[in-house]
């Protein structure tokens, strides 16, 4: 049986299972692997249509050796999340190439389940999970087809039956599966090394070179979600602070290492009410935490730098949720640290002479800092355009931008403005982060996408400390009012139509619930599950006990469903008679299968002559069953009640009614 060759339907479903398992990986893998693996699966499926034989060994063996070699060549080793997944996909495809028997198909499908699940290590959004759920039911359908060779049924009917059975099995598994998910104790620390290899997460970096933000501005994936305790501040106050960049090398802004350390807290003086909010940060594999200007303190496991940027102690590999309080009105560092002043005025020598000259002229003509800032903003406002399609800049990037192209977006404006300020002797720095967001009314939260990435400047003014200046707002106020793409206007593609964007933003609510309920369900929340029952911090053993009890309950329920008494054949009268016979059997007088009621009555009379009630009941049954065409309901009920009331004792010879 195990070596029976597969029917074409069985093979087709097995191949489909393997394909859906590989597909999520294939979209992600480099073409070096994606192309051969895809070709192998497709080629094998086509080949099997013509000939029910495995792909010959002389073709398979080189492939088995080739794939690991390629992986080692490309990644440097075979282990780890990324190379491991490639290897698993390749081996699964090769398994399909030799799958001819039921046993092979079983192995292939079990392995496909593993490969499918590993796809979630790379993307765990709701959409991917739902797709995987569908894929799981396909796997179960394939397993069923292996049990029920559909030769006797039309293929489509068989397929529908299989798919329905698979979906039903998953549906029926929901209670038990959820219980296991909620109460299965989580690992306190990973058993083996947590993933370190960088994945393709986009996000803010600690470096701003021309074009880095441009990638983000066309990326619509969520960066983080925010829920405010009170009504949100106005949209143009929503500056989400990320890495602060101090160092300019002529083309790129970056952040010196040592600014990661924290400093005295009393540099920040706040005025007005603080805003409380909660941020759910998408994994970025970087250490930046976003905060509304200006955060009052760092969340757990993170530090606040001297420039008020928040840095997590570990890279954000999973969805991270933290609470913060921020002050929208503040005074920061009213007396400037000399070291900071030096860094905030430093410019690379030998770059951008015309911008330096312009700044020197402003300093000479205008003298005061505020006037210089106004002059720079006025310059941007009058002569510059906001566009996402900025022309390329040469070696003297600031000069080129200021005097030649005059087209760009936040990155260019922030960079040029900060350069001008420093050249004019005003301490300045670039702040990167996000600006704005989309308010989801149904879910009452804000979603901030990567495309909301932004860069602005901060200048230090005597007596006022660091002051935020957004030069982009001077050029294109809509950027701050509406968002980057709306401001750019011209670059919208067909799939970025407004109504589609709105729909997507509204739909993001579902994602948020998914994140809340599933992705964010960590050990901490699990421990507090039993709080309503008086256990504040549930131990693993307690969780395990609850898991056992609840799953036993579910299984007991399922067991009852399976072995529940079947409706007896026949009508109520027969049922009552069957009960009577069962009572007799317990009393030691089983009815022979071929024995009629009168013979039974005779036997009973011979053994228990004084048992009048029993005699009467048997006589009543004979009368009701055989002496009338349709016994009246009341008579049958009376008979059933009398049977129920009858008590027989096992003791031999002495059987008397009780009660």
């Amino acid at each position: 049986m195990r070596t029976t060759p597969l029917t074409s339907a069985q093979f087709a479903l097995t191949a489909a299972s393997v394909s859906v398992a590989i597909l999520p990986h294939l979209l992600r893998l480099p073409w070096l692997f994606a192309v051969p693996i895809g070709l192998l699966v497709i080629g094998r499926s086509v080949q099997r249509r013509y000939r029910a034989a495995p792909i010959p060994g002389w073709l398979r063996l080189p492939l088995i050796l080739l794939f690991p070699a390629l992986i080692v060549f490309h990644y440097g080793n075979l282990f780890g999340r990324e190379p491991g997944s490639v290897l698993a996909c390749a081996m699964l495809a090769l398994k399909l190439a030799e799958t001819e028997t039921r046993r092979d198909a079983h192995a292939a499908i079990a392995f496909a389940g593993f490969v499918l699940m590993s796809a979630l290590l790379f993307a765990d959004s709701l959409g991917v999970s739902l797709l995987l759920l569908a894929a799981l039911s396909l796997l179960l359908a394939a397993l069923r087809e292996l049990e029920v060779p559909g030769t006797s049924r039309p293929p489509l009917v068989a397929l529908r039956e299989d798919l329905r059975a698979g979906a039903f099995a998953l549906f029926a598994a929901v209670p038990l599966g959820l219980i296991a998910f909620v109460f299965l104790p989580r690992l306190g620390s990973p058993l083996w090394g947590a993933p370190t290899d960088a994945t393709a997460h986009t996000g803010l970096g600690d470096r701003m070179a021309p074009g880095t933000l441009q990638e983000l501005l066309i990326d619509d994936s969520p960066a983080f979600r925010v829920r405010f305790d009170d009504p949100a501040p106005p949209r143009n106050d929503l500056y989400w602070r990320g890495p602060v960049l101090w160092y300019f090398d002529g083309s790129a802004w970056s952040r010196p290492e040592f600014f990661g350390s924290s400093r005295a807290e009393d540099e920040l003086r706040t005025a007005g009410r603080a805003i409380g909010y909660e941020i759910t940060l998408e994994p970025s594999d970087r250490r930046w935490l976003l905060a509304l200007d200006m955060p009052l303190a760092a969340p757990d496991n993170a530090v606040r730098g001297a420039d008020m940027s928040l840095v997590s102690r570990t890279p954000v590999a999973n969805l991270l949720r933290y609470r913060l309080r921020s002050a929208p009105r503040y005074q920061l560092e009213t007396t400037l640290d000399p070291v900071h002043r030096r860094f905030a005025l430093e410019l690379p020598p030998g770059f951008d002479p015309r911008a330096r000259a312009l700044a020197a002229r402003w300093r000479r003509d205008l003298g005061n800092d505020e006037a210089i800032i106004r002059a720079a903003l006025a310059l941007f406002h009058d002569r510059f355009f906001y566009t996402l399609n900025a022309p390329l800049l040469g070696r003297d990037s600031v000069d080129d931008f200021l005097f030649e192209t005059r087209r760009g977006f936040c990155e260019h404006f922030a960079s040029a403005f900060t350069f001008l300020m420093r050249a004019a002797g005003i301490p300045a720095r670039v702040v990167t982060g996000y600006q704005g967001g989309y308010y989801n009314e149904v879910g009452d939260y804000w979603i901030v996408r990567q495309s909301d990435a932004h860069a602005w400047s901060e200048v230090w003014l005597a007596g006022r400390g660091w002051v935020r200046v957004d030069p982009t707002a001077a050029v294109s106020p809509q950027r701050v009012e509406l968002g980057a793409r709306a401001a750019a206007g011209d670059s919208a593609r067909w799939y970025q139509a407004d109504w589609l964007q709105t729909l997507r933003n509204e739909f993001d609510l579902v994602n948020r619930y998914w994140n809340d309920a599933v992705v964010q369900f960590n050990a901490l929340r699990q421990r507090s599950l039993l709080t309503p029952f008086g256990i504040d911090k549930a131990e693993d053993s307690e969780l395990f006990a609850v898991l056992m009890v609840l799953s036993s309950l579910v299984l007991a329920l399922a067991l009852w469903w399976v072995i529940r008494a079947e409706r007896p054949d026949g009508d109520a009268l027969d049922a009552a008679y069957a009960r009577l016979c069962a009572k007799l059997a317990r009393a030691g007088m089983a009815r022979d299968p071929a024995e009629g009621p009168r013979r039974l009555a005779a036997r009973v009379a011979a053994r228990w002559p004084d048992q009048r009630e029993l005699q009467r009941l048997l006589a009543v049954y004979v009368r009701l069953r055989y002496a009338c065409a349709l016994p009246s309901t009341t008579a049958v009920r009376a008979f059933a009640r009398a049977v129920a009331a009858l008590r027989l004792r096992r003791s031999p010879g002495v059987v008397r009614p009780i009660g």
Partner: protein
Amino acid sequence: MNRLAAATRWSRLLEFAERRLPALTRLKRAESLPIRLDRHRIYVLPTRFGALFSLVLAVMLLGALNYNNNPALLLTCLLGAASYQSVFQAFRTLNRLELHAIRTEPCHAGEPLRVALHFRTDARPRRSLCLRVDAVEIRFDLPAAGEGCVHLTLDAPQRGWRRLGRLRLSSTYPFGLFEVWSWLHPDVAALVYPRLEPQAPPLPLDPAEAQWQTARGSGDELAVLREYRPTDPLRTIAWKASARHDTLLVKEFERRRGRDVVLDFGALHGLDREARLSRLARWVFLAEAAQVRYALVLPDQRLGPGLGAEHRHACLRALALQPGGAP
């Protein structure tokens, strides 16, 4: 010697187990039909694939826990629960299944024995059932609320009663992760006639009788009057006799081709018992083919003379049940 002692001890242990725990052993006594499967006699164990699958599930679970990946954990839990709960579906595949009749056709030893088993189900169709008797395995489905007939072909090496023995009814439905099975031991035996001698000498007819038979040709003689059946031709009706009685009577003719053949066990010298029985069986076969009345003389009984299916069966049965056959 040592092995023999161990085997004896083992069989004694099994006997003890059967006595004490009849439901747990498959050494159940034969039982009368119909046999209805219920939870007292259905067993479940994971298959080898089920074990492999749970290993894969365990690896997936560890991975999901290790990487703290909740969606993966959720799907693993769902898949695990789905595969675990398939044990109930597997159980329901056998539960309340009824074997209600078994029909066998008599056969000669050495020929295949055909057995038809009639199963009955309730409202649910049953899929992917597997019936094993001895080394014969057959897979079948049963429709909902219906009867299904399973035809088996068994070997019958020895004449006499051939007991069907224990049947193993199993299923790995729905996903092949669990196998449910039950043992059926119906109290049914099939009659196996003696082997037909392949190259038997012709029937022991006297040569003179044979000539007489040909001379007489197709001469018919009146044998008996019997009641009219609707299919009888009109010319066979005995009108005078019918008038005397109140019902229509029909003249029944019997073709007689000579005197009866006597097939005598004792007359076959120089052969052992099985060879004699084999030859007699072949002669019965030949006599039936030639439409010659025959009588069978055995050491313990005498049958016939007669002719026809019933007589033939009686003779073959007597031959089959001669001492020395299958118990």
